[in-house]
């Protein structure tokens, strides 16, 4: 399998605070990688770098074999390279209708910048039907996001990522504050991403959610990768023990 993303010796500090210290991290084509770790481990900083929101202080990033110049890397550039990010609770505008949320930042416009609303609404309905499965409950492309449940919101954000044909979908705590039933929906979305031949990075505190859908696990603690496992190397119970042990060893040092 080809390497889709490769990060080498990544460092990042925000002023005095060091967030990442020498991270090596790869994602292969059509691979689902779970990143585990405590608060402040640097998980979100790491993926924000791939999404084009944060620039590294030091280190190299390769996407599809191409070396990234951090200075002109942006959200738009990341999208062009096929990287879509679903942030925890920050992905959607509450008051805006679904079609505006789907096409935010990349509207179908004519040369003067006017939006082709009819086409976007049509596409949104299609996305809801085919990718999200959001058909009941009277939701339409004109419904505003505030009328949706937490799971449906994540569904919209993930559906948006799939629609724009991402090669890599990054999910940052997508199951935060969701009911169990809705968590199931999100996990099914991740399985769908895999079936569609795309890669996924799944960040979560909850190991029992990450375990069934991921193929590889990366444990992070205080800005470093502590250990990596392939799924066949560990059971869920072993992985849980190892996460607890790894973070406790880290704390003793």
């Amino acid at each position, binding site marked *: 399998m080809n390497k889709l993303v490769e990060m080498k010796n990544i460092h990042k500090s925000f002023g005095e605070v060091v967030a990442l210290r020498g991270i090596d991290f790869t994602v292969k084509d059509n691979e689902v990688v779970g990143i585990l770790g405590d608060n402040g481990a640097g998980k979100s900083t790491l993926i924000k770098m791939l999404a084009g929101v944060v620039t590294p202080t030091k280190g190299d990033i390769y996407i599809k074999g191409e070396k990234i110049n951090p200075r002109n890397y942006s959200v738009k550039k990341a999208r062009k390279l096929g990287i879509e990010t679903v942030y925890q609770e920050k992905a959607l505008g509450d*008051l805006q209708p679904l079609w505006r949320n789907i096409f935010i*930042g990349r509207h179908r416009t004519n040369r003067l*910048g*006017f939006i082709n609303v009819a086409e976007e609404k049509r596409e949104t309905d299609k996305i809801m039907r085919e990718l999200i499965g959001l058909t009941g409950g009277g939701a339409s492309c004109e419904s505003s996001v*505030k009328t949706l449940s937490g799971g449906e919101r994540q569904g919209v954000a993930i559906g948006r990522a799939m629609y724009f044909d991402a090669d890599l979908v990054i999910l940052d705590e997508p199951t935060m504050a969701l009911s169990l039933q809705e968590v199931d929906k999100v996990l099914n979305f991740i399985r769908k991403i895999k079936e569609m031949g795309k890669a996924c990075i799944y960040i979560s505190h909850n190991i029992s959610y990450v375990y069934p859908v991921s193929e590889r696990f990366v444990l992070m603690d205080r800005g470093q990768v502590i250990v990596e496992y392939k799924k066949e190397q560990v059971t869920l119970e072993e992985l849980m023990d190892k996460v607890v042990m790894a973070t406790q060893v880290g704390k003793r040092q």
Partner: protein
Amino acid sequence: MMMKMKKKELVKNLKTPWYITLINKYRMQLGLVVITAMVLVLFMIGSPRAFLSGNIYRTFLSTIPFVGIMALGLTLILASGQIDLSFPSTMALSGYAFAVIFTMTESVFLGLVVALLAGALIGIGNGLLVTKIGIPPIIVTLGMMFFIRGVVHVLAGGLAVPLRALSGTNWFKVFSGTFVGIPVQSVWFLLLGVFLWFILFRHRLGDSILFIGDNEETAGMMGINVHRTKIVAFAIMGMLAAFAGVLDLFRLRTWWPTMGEGYLMTTMAAVFVGGTSMFGGEGTIFGTFIGAFLIGSLEAGIVASGMSGFWTQLIYGLLIIVSVTIHTLLRRKSK
């Protein structure tokens, strides 16, 4: 067969008719139209001589657009989650720029271009201070309001500029005449209203404005250029204030250093009564349109019904508080 019929009927009953959907969607605006009509009926009963003649309505159509045009700009600003207090001063400075250029060159076109440029520059100044320095817009534009007014007084030395020659220009008809019997100012108001509706609800820029007002952090992470959008919004506000100023000069044919004073309250009242949210992410151009007419007719109504002019301020202030209270309560309920 029976089953099929029943099913069809059920579906038909479930589907709300289009006019109900339409009424639901625009219920706030419809309510506003009803309120405006009621206020006018009250005025007709209170002072039939003034309010049953066509004259007063023709006057409305030539005076309301100044406030209305600035209210359109303020609607965009509020939709982006910001506020602008500096536009009355911008109106005065742009008006002064127009007056000076016109007096010097006798060219309305040149004067208009310079006035719009001055308005845009003040707006860009506001936008830069808000985005690049990070000062809250209410403070930036409060400072700008005093600063620009001061600049106006210093430049003009406190003196008015007569512009009687404006009535001799070909432009007079364009900015102060009538169009099929309607004062042309209201035609400008209508055209700008339609244009800004398309900008806010059908253009990429308006989409960015709404998203930033809704959730600035999300907008940034989804690839919207937050700083640039805010600066452009302030620049549009400045240009609309400048344009309203030039229109006003064609009506008055004298530039006064106090130009625009008193428009802050009426413009705010028009936008808030119109139903635009002060929390950002939403806005209604149509509401602002009706709001401007409601506010504009109130002043005339209060004066015509024999109440003292002092009452206008009290009533406008009350209207602002009542309308934002209603909006906040409705918002809380929908959450």
